[in-house]
C-alpha cells in the first residue's frame, strides 16, 4: 500500500482495518463450510441426518462476497496485465484510471441491484427451499455487505490513484 504522508490518517487506518476485517470474515466463512460439512459427516456416522447442502452453500457465498474487498486490495483479482506491463507510466495511468473507473461503475450497479434483491426477498419473505427454510434475505445480506465493501475499496483505490499519481496495485 502506498502512502504519501508518513503517519497514516485515521481514515486510512479505518479503511485498511475494514479490508482486513473483510478477509477475516471471509476466512471464517470457509471455516464455516468445513464445520457444517464435518457436522454432516459426523452426523451420518452417528445416525443423525444433518443436511449441510444449504448451510455450506450459504457460507461459500458469504466467503466469496465478504472477501472481495480484501482480495481486491491485495491485487488478487484476475485481470490481463499484458498490455499494462508493456506501456509507459503515463499511458498506464490512463488505462488504470479507465479500468478502475469501469470496475467502479460495474460494482455500483451490482451493489444497487443486490440491495434491491435483499429488499425484495425481505418484503416477500422468501424462504430457502431446503430443510433449514432460512429467510433468504439473511444470506443475501452477506452479498450486499460484501459488494458494498468492494465498492468502498474500489472508490478508495480510485481516489488515491487520481490524487497521489501513484499506482497502488503493484503485483
Amino acid at each position, binding site marked *: 500500500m502506498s502512502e504519501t504522508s508518513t503517519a497514516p490518517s485515521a481514515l486510512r487506518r479505518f479503511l485498511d482495518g475494514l479490508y482486513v476485517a473483510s*478477509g477475516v470474515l*471471509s*476466512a471464517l466463512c*470457509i*471455516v464455516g*463450510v*468445513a464445520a457444517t*460439512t*464435518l457436522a*454432516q*459427516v459426523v452426523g451420518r456416522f452417528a445416525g443423525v441426518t444433518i443436511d449441510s*447442502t*444449504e448451510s*455450506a*452453500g*450459504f*457460507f*461459500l*457465498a458469504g*466467503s*466469496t*462476497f465478504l*472477501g*472481495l474487498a*480484501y*482480495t481486491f486490495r*491485495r491485487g*488478487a*483479482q*484476475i*485481470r*490481463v*496485465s*499484458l*498490455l*499494462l506491463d508493456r506501456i509507459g507510466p503515463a499511458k498506464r495511468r490512463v*488505462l*488504470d484510471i*479507465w*479500468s478502475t473507473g*469501469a*470496475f467502479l461503475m*460495474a*460494482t455500483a*450497479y*451490482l451493489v*444497487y*441491484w*443486490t440491495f*434491491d*434483491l435483499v429488499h*425484495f426477498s425481505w418484503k416477500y419473505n422468501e424462504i430457502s427451499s431446503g430443510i433449514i427454510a432460512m429467510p433468504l434475505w439473511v*444470506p*443475501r445480506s452477506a*452479498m450486499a455487505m460484501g459488494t458494498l465493501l468492494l465498492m468502498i475499496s474500489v472508490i478508495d483505490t480510485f481516489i488515491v490513484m487520481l490524487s497521489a499519481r501513484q499506482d497502488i496495485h503493484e503485483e
Partner: protein
Amino acid sequence: MDGSVVGLIIFSTILLLLASGIWVAPALIIGGGIALAMFSSVPVGSLMASTIWDASWHWPLTALPLFIWMGEILFRSSLSSDMFRGLSPWLSRLPGGLLHVNILGCGMMAAITGSSAVTAATIGRMSMRELDQRGYDPSLSIGTLAGSGTLGLLIPPSIMMIIYGVLAQQSISRLFIAGVLPGMLIIALFMIYVGIRALLNPKIAPVETTRLSFAQKMRMTGPLLPVIGLIFVVIGSIYGGYATPTEAATIGVLGAFVLSAASGSLTWRSCFEGLMSAVTMSCMITFILAPAFFLSIALGFVGVPAAIAAYVESLSLSPYMLIAILTVMYIVLGCFLEGASMMVLTAAVVIPLVTAAGFDLIWFGIFLIITIEMSQITPPVGMNLFVLQGLTGKDLGTVTRASMPFFGLMVLAIAIITVFPQFVLAPVSFITSR
C-alpha cells in the same frame, strides 16, 4: 439480428475490455449487461443480481475452497523436501535419473493440491537446486518441472475440474475419476521422453552411483507415507462412493492439519497464513465464476449459443476437425488468458456446441483441462513459466524454450485421448456401474 453476430459483438467487447486492463469479473458483468440491454427486453439489473446470487451458493462449488485450503496447509509443511528425499532413491537409476523426481513428484503433488503453480513451486523449491548441483541439463530440469507442474489441473483433486463441473453441470466425482488415466498417460509420455533423451545423450543426466538397500530406501520414503495415505483416503472415499467431493475435502483439511502438526511445522502463524491464502485464491475464482453464470444466462436469453451451434453444424465438420479447431482456439486464447478465465468465458458457447456435436461432456472436460494445462506453459501469459522464472532467475525465453517439448507431448496426449476416448471414459463407466 442473428445470434452469432450478437455473439461476435459481445465477445469482441469483452476481449477489448480485458485487453484494456479491466478485471475479468466486471468485464463479464458488462458483457452480459450489454447483451441483455441491447438485444432483449428483460430487466437487466434484477436478473444479474439473482443469477450471481444463485451461482454463488451452488453446492458442488463448496469443495473448491476446502481443496484449496488443504493444499495451502500441506504447502506450508515440510512436504517439499520429503518429496525429493522420498522419491529420489527409487528413481535415480532410471535413464534420466533425478529428472524423473520432477515428473513423479509433480504427479503426486498434483494429487494433493488442485493448482499447477503450487505443484511446480513445491517440487521445484527443493529439486531445482539439487539437480543443478549434480550437473543435470538445466533446460530439461526446467522443462520437466514446468510441464509436469501443469498436472495439478488434471490429477484429482483439481480446482479446474470443480470449475468445469459447475459450469457444464457434470458430476465432479466422475470428472475426478476420468482425470486419472490421462494424467498417468502424460506422466508416462514425459518419463519416456526424458529416458530417450538421456539414452541418446548421456551428458544431460549424470549417472547416480549411490546404491541403497531396500530398507534404506524405505527409511528415506518414510516421511512421505502419511501424505500418500491421506491422498488415498481423500480420493478413495470419492471413488468408492463413500463421500461427496466436499466431504472428502473436509476430511482432507483435517488430515492436513494432523499431518502438519505431527511433523512439527504447524504454528498459529502458518495456520493463519494458509487460511488467508486460501481465502484469496478461492475468492479470486468464485468471483469470476458467478459473473460467468450471468454472462451465460444473458447469452442464452439472446440466443447466442444456439445460433453458433447451428452455424457450426451447417459447416458439417467432422468431430476430429471440430476438436482440432477448438484445440487451436484454446491454445491461442491460452497465450493471453489464464486458465479459469478462459474456461468461464467460453463455457456458455462451447459447451452447447460440443453437446450438439455429440461429444461426451466428461470427455470434453478432460480435453479442455489438458488444453488449459498447455496454456500454463505458453508465453506471454503462462502461470508455470512465471513460477519457473521466479525459481531459476532465467529469462522467459529460456524457460519457454525448455518447456516446448513438453507442450508438444501434451498435444500428443490430446490426440491419443481423441482417438481413444476410452482412456477417459472407461474408468468412469467401470467405477460408476458397479
